């Protein structure tokens, strides 16, 4: 298993690359979904279904 994690000694590059991409995309998705939910709630409060 440590062979996999070591990524042939390139671990310091491969994992941060994947990590930053994952974090970036996850944060983006969360922000987008939350904004969407908030807008939907705002409309619901006004008694409208989108």
């Amino acid at each position: 298993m440590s062979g996999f994690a070591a990524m042939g000694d390139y671990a310091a590059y491969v994992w941060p690359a994947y990590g930053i991409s994952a974090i970036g995309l996850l944060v983006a998705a969360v922000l987008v979904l939350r904004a969407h939910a908030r807008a939907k709630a705002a409309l619901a409060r006004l008694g409208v279904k989108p």
Partner: protein
Amino acid sequence: MLRYANPARFMKLSSTLVPWLGGLALVALAAGLYLGFAAPPDYQQGDTVRIMFIHVPAAWIAMMAYGLMALASLIGLVQRHPLADVAAKAAAPLGALFTALGLITGSLWGRPMWGTWWVWDGRLTSFLLLLFLYLGYIALWNAIEDETRAARAAAILALVGAVNLPIIEFSVDWWTTLHQGESILRKGGPLIASVYLWPLALMALGYTLLFFTLWLLRIRTEIMTRRARNLMLAGEA
């Protein structure tokens, strides 16, 4: 196609599309990740070749997003349809994100090979300029108060940028050969071993579906926000 330009129709269509696109995106990404890590290390690049699976898709989406943004801007300018303007506005931050991811992963991919965190390679340099184009576009939207004016100004900027982009890429390419004689970042060329082709294709598909999912969600959010705002203003009147 323009039938869906009606906001109500768009909302209906997108509400069915989004869950599917999102679900398929996750499946594609999962499959791509699995195959990407199951593939053997490259003869020359070792395990760093796996970074290709997240670098190249990010780069493709960065370019595609700009193309979509420019197209939406053109439609918005010509047809004066607010949905097109919203679509362009919604695409920009996503495009900027993927460009940034492309730059970061590109740097990490190259570091073991080049020995430095940055190299003025043609591809990365063009990307840096693309990022600035995105940021300028977003800044322009935010700086102009009137929505319609902002939409039109940003649309003009997007189109000027779109026309300029091939020129910028050409000039950067020219500059690279002038100063380095050959592009340093050679991403496996046209003949990628099929064991790498599959994870790459799946990740590209996953990234694309993810982009469209988030893009549609952002457009929906903007439509709903404007509708809520109009309702409140009408209520006060």
